[in-house]
């Protein structure tokens, strides 16, 4: 058990600056997820914590110790890799026992620990098999088992579920969460899948181009994204964005563009005041677009033409044409809509997001 601290961490590959001044504290027993598109530096950050990548500048602390110059074996960590990295010439038992053998544990103790881990993961009957005789999900379990037998201070996960099919991925996601609840070891988990990030993380770190964009609890990130990138990255389907112009007087502001316009709710007007006669980006999540009914404030309604209807069962996604803009609305499954319908939608005033057009920072 230990906390992990990253202090102004930087990584340069020749002239490319891959990780830029990352400062993070992963609390003891916390499950922290690093998420971002490929090439955002999340894996490199994880590998620096693991000791597989040298640190260009900054510090990594595990517990109270600076581990910059410690080899991976002395950092007391365990890592689960995307391609499982099981040793193909060893049985499942030997795969799991390898780390303990290297650390010169007693035979009896090794047997006990491997058995215990195998029981937790439900792979007792696979111990004599070779990795090539296992399915993807079983291999992933063995990889997890190999990590937990060691009782390390920190678990590192590098996209462990990416090679599994969709159904198995959901199942293993739940298992990883359960495992963490049971072992409560500090864990750092890297993924490019925002659903994994939201469901697994106690806290989530969104990264882009080597820079941390926002750190927070999943819903905090979802409900109040710090910038347009975070807003667009989390959630599926993604947030709708529209470039609009703010105009009007202090208390009655309008955000509009050809074919689309709303009255800015008073609670947001104060924040938007500096942007009068300037361009901003408005962001609305698909589930915050509702079909309008009589009680909705007229100023927050607009009209859209249905282009595509995607029936998902639990909800219906409507691809809309609003002016020169496309938007996606997630509506109740009982809505009857067909292509070409003109529908009126209402926005929820407390669920509107505005971003600075140039810096993309939330307003």
């Amino acid at each position: 058990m230990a906390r992990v601290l990253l202090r102004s961490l930087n990584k340069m590959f020749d002239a490319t600056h891959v990780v830029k001044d990352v400062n993070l504290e992963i609390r003891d027993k916390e499950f922290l997820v690093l998420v971002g598109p490929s090439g955002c530096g999340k894996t490199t950050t994880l590998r620096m914590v693991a000791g597989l990548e040298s640190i260009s500048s900054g510090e990594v602390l595990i517990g109270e110790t600076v581990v910059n110059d410690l080899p991976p074996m002395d950092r007391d960590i365990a890592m689960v890799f995307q391609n499982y990295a099981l040793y193909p010439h060893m049985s499942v038992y030997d795969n799991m026992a390898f780390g303990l053998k290297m650390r010169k544990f007693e035979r009896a103790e090794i047997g006990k620990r491997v058995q215990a881990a195998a029981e937790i993961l439900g792979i007792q009957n696979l111990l004599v098999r070779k990795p090539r005789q296992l399915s993807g999900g079983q291999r992933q379990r063995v990889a997890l088992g190999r990590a937990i037998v060691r009782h390390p201070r920190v678990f590192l996960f590098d996209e462990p579920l990416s090679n599994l099919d969709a159904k198995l991925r959901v199942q293993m996601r739940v298992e990883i969460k359960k495992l963490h609840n049971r072992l409560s070891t500090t864990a750092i988990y890297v993924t490019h899948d925002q659903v994994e990030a939201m469901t697994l993380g106690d806290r989530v770190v969104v990264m882009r181009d080597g820079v941390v964009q926002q750190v927070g609890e999943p819903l905090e990130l979802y409900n109040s994204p710090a910038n347009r990138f975070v807003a667009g990255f989390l959630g599926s389907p993604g947030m709708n964005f529209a470039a609009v112009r703010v105009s009007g007087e202090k208390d009655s502001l309008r955000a509009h563009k050809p074919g689309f316009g709303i009255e800015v709710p008073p609670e947001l007007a104060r924040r938007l005041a500096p942007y009068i006669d300037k361009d901003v980006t408005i962001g609305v999540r698909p589930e915050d677009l509702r079909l309008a009914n009589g009680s909705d404030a007229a100023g927050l309604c607009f009209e859209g033409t249905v282009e595509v209807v995607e029936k998902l069962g639990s909800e219906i996604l409507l691809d809309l044409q609003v002016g020169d803009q496309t938007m996606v609305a997630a509506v109740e499954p009982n809505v009857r809509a067909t292509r070409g319908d003109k529908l009126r939608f209402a926005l929820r005033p407390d669920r509107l997001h505005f971003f600075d057009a140039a810096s993309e920072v939330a307003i």
Partner: protein
Amino acid sequence: MIEGARWRRWVFFYIPLGVFVVVLLFPFYWMMVTSVRPDSELYRPWMAPNYTPFWTLHPTLEHIQHLLAETMFSTWMWNTLFISTVATIISVFCGLLAGYALSRLNFPFAGSLGTGIFITYLVPQTLLFIPLSDIIRNFRLGDTPWALILTYPTFLIPFCTWLLMGYFKAIPRELEECARIDGATRWKAMVYIVFPVAVPGIMSAAIFAFTLSWNEFIYALVFLSSPAEKTVPVGVTSELIRGDVFFWGQLMAGALLGSIPVAIIYSFFVEYYVAGLTGSVKG
């Protein structure tokens, strides 16, 4: 497999394959037939009425007996075996370490060093034997097995290094990284994880190296002179061709017996060998 009509399969698959197999195996067949053919049949003119070039009606072991009794063939076999084995062990060991280093470690000039090693392999032996013979003489190694054991690696090490480099590159890095996180040093990760996984590659490098040294001719011809030190290829050709007299029966018997060890090695390790060349590593 070729799809479509039956004739297509014959024209594009079975017939070409058959031709290939016949062309490939005919020299071996000829070697076998000649080594058991009595001299009276061997030197019979082609227009004689009972001329049978492709088979014999009176098989005999006299050539093999002559070869074993009157020449130093068994000594040559032993020399070849000893030289090939030691040269192979040295070359595979060096190739293993060099291949690992070139494919896995980041050090300055790793790329150019790899290319450099490859270029040395491209220098033809027919050029290299001249400076090498000077070196052999200076070290007073001429006419000893060590003349070959130490010169064969000049072409075997580059070969093994390149073959193993390719093989190591196909082994996922994560295996090693995982081992190092699991508590292994770089050296232990290499010995316990990378080398066992690379066994097919190592085996095929060893088989190749062994075959190349077993068949090597020019260095053996130049560096060895006394009959008792010779290897099979040189011994057979220098002792059984006297002037313009070819002892065909014994020559072929020598070639046949000389190729048996290589054939045995190939048949035992053919699976490793194929896996080694196709580089099939599965995590």
